């Protein structure tokens, strides 16, 4: 069952039940009240008739009479004083009946009065003992069907009105609920749209209630998903593009080996080129794995490191390239500073930065690694990065100078990877550069 139907039915039943209870209560009260009014008026009549009856003789008069005479006298006087609708009772047996009904058994009348149902009629029975002689009672029988019918009509009216009110309330509630649930329906549609691939689908947020908050959260999620997927698509696109060159080489050279008559020297060259294309793809996949997979769960070691030791290690590991390119690597060792982090990752980050500096520098220049406070700076006086490329250099596969980076064996992933490493350590990486003057990369630890 739909939520709307459920809620509306629930509300309708609750309303109907509570209103029904109210109606039943008020009908009962009304019945009681009208009965008590009838009884009171009947009592009054009996009292008045009783007063007249007392005139017919004193207690002593009656006591002096014989049993039979007294009874006959009483019957006679009863007929005179009481009109129709009354009966004289002696010890539970009717001796004079002026009612329209036959009186058979009075044991059912326990209290002072009761209402008896006779077919469709309702009869009020009320008894009152005569003051004297003892053992005699007067029973009044009054048809109260009219007022009873009135009550029943009233109850019917109540039922109709309350039923109608419940129904109207349920309908109004259904309409209000429909508006509230519309947001939910929109959410459902937007989610369905996302699952069908329409990323970035959003819902209209109305008001500030919980559903609106869910809507806001949904919109944020949708945006985030779209952005992530776009990033991933960009990365994949870049990857596919980067794969083209090595794949073209491998296919082209192997095809040449298969179907073109090459000289021995050419054959060897082709094999070498196939090999180097393979190596390049391998490097790329290793770096990509490092970028997207390995540190995804932020499972990096956080050991306490001495910055001095770390930079010493960087100098050792980075030594080969500066030497080969005739670039001087200067490391200014700082006063000792403790940082939390993963030694291998940080080392690879700085080695990469140093290598970038070396590749950008002409022979004879120098690359300077220095530390001040919690900031490590790698500086070169090389070719610099053009202003338009600067915001993009940390994007995967972005290369400011494509041919040059390639010929140096770059994959375009170094800085993207570096950025990730810095992020994982909760630090920031800042790159300042001017084309033709050099580049300065500052890594600040928290």
């Amino acid at each position, binding site marked *: 069952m739909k939520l709307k139907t459920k809620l509306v039915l629930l509300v309708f039943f609750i309303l109907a039940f509570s209103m029904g209870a109210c109606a039943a209560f008020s009908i009962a009260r009304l019945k009681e009240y009208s009965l008590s009014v009838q009884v009171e008026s009947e009592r009054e009549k009996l009292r008045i008739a009783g007063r007249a009856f007392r005139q017919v003789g004193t207690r002593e008069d009656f006591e002096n009479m014989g049993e039979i005479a007294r009874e006959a006298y009483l019957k006679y006087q009863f007929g005179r004083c009481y009109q129709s609708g009354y009966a004289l009772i002696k010890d539970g047996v009717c001796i004079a009946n002026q009612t329209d009904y036959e009186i058979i058994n009075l044991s059912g009348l326990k209290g002072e009065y009761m209402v008896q149902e006779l077919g469709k009629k309702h009869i009020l029975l009320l008894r009152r003992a005569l003051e004297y002689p003892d053992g005699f009672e007067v029973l009044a029988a009054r048809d109260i069907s009219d007022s009873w019918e009135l009550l029943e009509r009233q109850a019917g009216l109540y039922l109709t009105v309350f039923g109608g009110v419940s129904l109207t309330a349920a309908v109004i509630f259904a309409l209000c609920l429909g508006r509230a649930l519309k947001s939910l329906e929109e959410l459902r549609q937007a989610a369905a749209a996302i699952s069908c691939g329409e990323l970035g689908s959003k819902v209209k947020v109305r008001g500030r209630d919980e559903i609106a908050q869910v809507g806001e959260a949904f919109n944020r999620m949708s945006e985030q998903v779209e952005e992530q997927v776009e990033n991933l698509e960009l990365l994949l696109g870049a990857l596919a*593009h980067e794969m*083209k*060159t090595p*794949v*073209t*080489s491998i*296919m*082209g*050279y192997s*095809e*040449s080996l*298969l*179907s*073109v*008559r*090459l000289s021995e020297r*050419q054959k060897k*060259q*082709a094999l070498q*080129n196939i090999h*180097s*294309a393979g190596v390049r793809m391998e490097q790329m996949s290793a770096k990509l794995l490092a970028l997207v997979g390995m540190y995804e769960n932020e499972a990096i070691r956080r050991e306490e490191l001495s910055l001095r030791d770390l930079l010493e290690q960087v100098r050792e590991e980075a030594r080969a390239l500066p030497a080969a390119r005739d670039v001087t690597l200067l490391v200014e060792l700082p006063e000792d500073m403790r940082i939390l982090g993963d030694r291998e990752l940080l080392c690879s980050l700085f080695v990469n930065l140093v290598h970038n500096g070396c590749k950008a520098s002409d022979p004879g220049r120098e690359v300077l690694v220095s530390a001040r406070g919690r900031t490590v700076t790698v500086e070169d006086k090389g070719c610099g990065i053009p202003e338009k490329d600067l915001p993009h250099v940390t994007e995967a596969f972005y290369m400011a*100078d*494509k*041919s*040059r980076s*390639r*010929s140096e064996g770059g994959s375009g992933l170094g800085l993207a990877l570096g950025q990730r490493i810095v992020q994982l350590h909760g630090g920031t990486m800042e790159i300042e550069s001017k084309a033709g003057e050099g580049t300065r990369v500052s890594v600040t630890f928290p």
Partner: protein
Amino acid sequence: MKNRILVVEDERIISDLICMNLETAGYETRAVYDGSEAAGLLREQGQEAADLALVDIMLPGMDGFALMELFQGKHIPVIYLTAKADVTSKVRGLKLGAEDYIVKPFEVLELLVRMEKVLERTGKMKPELCYGDLVVDLNMHRVWEGGAEVDLKPMEFGLLTVFLKNRNVVLGRDRLLDLVWGSDFYGETRTVDVHVAKLRKKLKSAGAIKTIPKAGYMFEDDGL
């Protein structure tokens, strides 16, 4: 005389691949690795720079699209050879006036055939093909060997020119059928064998056509 091809490609490994294959197939190549270098060469040598240029689009210095105007100024036909596979780039390249647009990774034989078509279309194809004392006049459809004219049927002539244009490359029988008889010819591959046999009978030089088991034929030319 060989056709001269200018290869403008910044990836040295790809450039080498193209040059190696073109040279083996009988072209003369010249490789430049930079857009501005290519522009400089064109300004310097003009039309003499090449008969045909294979140009990458993403180049350092000056991109392939920007180079197009220069090539057209010098009447050098251009084939784009690029990793950019999107339609926009293709349309742009062809609209700018490229003769063809080939997406990497490419097949060597396909590249050779497309180049050949462009050379024919633009009239840059050298009118004579030579091998030893064999001379083929493409315009007159005549063949001489050792100074004496040899009478060849049209299909035999077509087959010979395909071999001479794609030397040292293995040509499958299906491929030969396609290239000589056309793609709507529903002949058997046996037809190729028959014509190769006839060529070998009529021409001494046709001994250079070697049968490659399970692959097809190859015109071997060690003089390249």
